[in-house]
């Protein structure tokens, strides 16, 4: 019948109106600045450096200034200067650390290659997008102190990825510890048999091969 389409249409919009007050599917507006933006976990913007704890950020950076991310970055926005000395890292082993670690976020294209190639899980992608600076050049150039954020923050923004990284790192450390213990035990047992290795040159235990 002529006009039935109009009446059906009026019904649809009436349902929209009534539903917009109580049904979340019919009111999809997020009042952004007042309510925080709901971002998916995989959202990424600029990188940040992971520190093991928040109390001593510069002392617990996972980054060892290997400069792989600097070489892999396509727009070459990362600038690293190695330190001259070594400091003990989270496992106690003396490692180099970055004296200067600067990322020009105006150039960064959020490709995540630096994250993919980092062997130490030291650089991860952040989710902050509301960045505004008063200067086009220096304002968006972030240095080491501005880039360092604690592991708790990493857990907050990317729970599954942080859990996986932590699990992997603890497993690796455990394996390294066990290996060190086994090597120490083997070393302790080796002097007890001084005569045996004289005839048959026994292969040296491949200690140096396993990096800890």
């Amino acid at each position, binding site marked *: *019948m*002529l*006009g039935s389409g*109009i009446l059906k*249409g*009026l019904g*649809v*919009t*009436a349902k*929209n*109106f009534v539903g*917009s*007050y109580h049904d979340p599917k*019919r*009111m*999809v*507006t997020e*009042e952004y600045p007042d309510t925080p933006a709901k971002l998916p976990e995989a959202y990424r913007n600029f990188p940040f450096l992971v520190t093991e704890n928040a109390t001593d950020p510069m002392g617990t950076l996972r980054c060892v200034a290997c400069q792989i991310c600097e070489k892999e970055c396509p727009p070459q926005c990362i600038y690293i200067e190695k330190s001259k000395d070594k400091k003990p890292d989270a496992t106690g082993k003396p490692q180099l650390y970055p004296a200067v670690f600067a990322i020009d976020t105006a150039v960064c294209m959020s490709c995540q290659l630096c994250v993919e190639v980092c062997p130490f899980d030291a650089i991860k992608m952040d989710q902050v997008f509301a960045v505004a600076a008063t200067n086009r050049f220096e304002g968006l150039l972030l240095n080491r102190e501005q880039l360092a954020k604690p592991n708790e923050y990493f857990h907050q923004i990317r729970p599954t990825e942080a859990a996986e990284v932590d699990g992997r790192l603890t497993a690796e450390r455990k394996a390294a510890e066990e290996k060190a213990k086994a090597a120490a035990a083997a070393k302790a047992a080796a002097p007890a048999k001084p005569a045996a290795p004289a005839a048959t040159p026994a292969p040296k235990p491949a200690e140096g091969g396993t990096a800890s």
Partner: protein
Amino acid sequence: MNLETLPLQFRDWIVSLFPGALQWFVHHLLSITAILTFFGLFFAFTTIAERKLLARLQNRLGPNRSGLPWFRRLKLWGLTQPFADAIKAITKEDVVPAVADKVLHFLAPVVIVAFSLLGFAVLPFGRHLIPVELDAAILYFFAAGTATELAIFMAGWGSRNKYSLLAAMRALAQLISYELPLILSVVPVILVVGTLSTSEIALAQGGWTWGIIPHWHVFTPWGFAGFVIFLVAALAESNRSPFDLPEAESELIAGHLTEYSGFKYALFFMAEYFGLTALSGLGVTLFLGGWQAPFAFLEFIPSWLWFMTKLAGMIVFFIWIRGTLLRLRIDQLTRLAWKFLVPLALLNLGNAAFWTLTAGWTGPLVLVRWGVSAAIVIVPFLLLGRRLSAGYAPRTYRYAA
């Protein structure tokens, strides 16, 4: 203190403060001031209501950020938005093209607002609240309405812009086409009641059957058909969706308003809303019983409150239609007016004549009267609708395999 006559008492009190020679002048000046302020504020709140209602119909929030000037925290659900819009319109730069016809360009918004406001003078807002009591009130209303078309031509021509002119011609074609169904839909009411005076038409719709069914014209077959035709024609006369081709942004920028900015644009906007409100007011008076209460036991509510409620209801319905229906093309518009609405309105006239002549039928003949009247409405509607949409509806869709 009778709520019903409170406005009248207030006016009489103010008039009594002035000397006798000025009293006639003050009396009418008060009516004019009351209409201007009340409907000015009504216009402001219609714009924010429209934006919020349209937003809710479209699954989004409307404007809800404009608060009060010094109390920044109080957002008040965005109800002060129209005042913010007014300040913006007033302070915007008024750009007039160098080759434009300055006199016409300036006069067009003035003329259109003036004639749109004239229509409010004959609407009975309450039992005793009509600004001007005219014997030929409806004729006056339509005379004021048709004069606004001249302003649209002046706007289109004065802008010296061929797109404005083209759009003004299309707008005029639309307005002239829908004048006919508008006036023809009103004639049956005049026929049945026997007078052109709006206050008498509102009075004639009093009384209730069994105390709950009001004798409004919309509850009779010819009145219902007339009301529907009036609704469609009123939407088209005030250039509102789905008939807003003249001001569709995707068609001709802003049509005849392309070269207007700032306050002049706001004046055109105001004129459109005033026209819509006045036409809604006329529709309420002619078909929805004016200031009459719907049920006998609700008569204690003042009559002007009933009028305003019905007016607000009609405007909400217009906004609902705007959020639902698609825009019509110019040829679809004119086809609807001339081939569909005009024949139905003419048949409705015959229907009302039949109704008047059979006013004396009682008993079982009343059912015959209602049946014949309803048949004269429904049968041509179905036949004409079917014939005109032959080949167009229902749509069949063929998808790529």
